[in-house]
């Protein structure tokens, strides 16, 4: 469970380059993907760590980009375009067949805590890279 969550947080931070069109492949599937570059882009205030606000803004961007029809929800097809479609059943708490932004946040923020190995409330570059490396295994 913890491993799954770490993979998700890596994907969330990693999806920096996710474009708004479904045709674009998720960045985590790109062999040229660089988690360090993703970290730099997520760390918008450039203080060397990703805090909750930056993480939420990243998640919002990922969610908005994935929501191709812009109906405000992610359906199974849109979720499949992300790197972690297996997590759909976990996200869809109310079992209505789609994932709201609130549901998306709830699961992802739990994964933030899992990736925060030293429990200091922020993600360092090393913690994000470690999560990414675990995802690759």
């Amino acid at each position, binding site marked *: 469970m913890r491993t799954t969550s770490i993979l998700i947080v890596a994907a969330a931070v990693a999806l920096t380059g996710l474009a708004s*069109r479904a045709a674009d492949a998720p960045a985590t599937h790109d062999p040229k993907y660089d988690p360090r570059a993703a970290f730099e882009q997520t760390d918008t205030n450039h203080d060397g760590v990703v805090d909750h606000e930056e993480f939420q803004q990243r998640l919002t*961007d990922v969610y*908005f980009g994935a929501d191709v029809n812009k109906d405000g929800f992610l359906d199974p097809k849109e979720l499949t375009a992300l790197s972690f479609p297996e997590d759909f059943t976990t996200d869809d708490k109310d079992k209505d067949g789609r994932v709201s932004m609130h549901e998306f946040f709830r699961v992802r923020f739990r994964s933030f805590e899992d990736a925060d190995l030293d429990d200091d409330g922020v993600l360092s570059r090393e913690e994000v890279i470690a999560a990414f490396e675990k995802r690759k295994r």
Partner: protein
Amino acid sequence: MASEAAQRAFEQNNTGQSSVWQNPDTGNSGTVTPTRTYQIANGQYCREYKQSIVVGGEQHQAYGTACRQPDGTWQIQS
């Protein structure tokens, strides 16, 4: 042209990604850049943005918020 660029930026651009427009007739140009995205209660998306306009060689900047309407257009709120 500016309006089309804005609609395109709101609908398609990632945060921080600019859409550029230029009017060859007037020489005016500009960019529209979403700076923050959020949802309001009904799942409707809103995006804060920065707009830069060059008119008569002078650059002006403005900030605002646009929200997506059910018909797919984005309406500027402020």
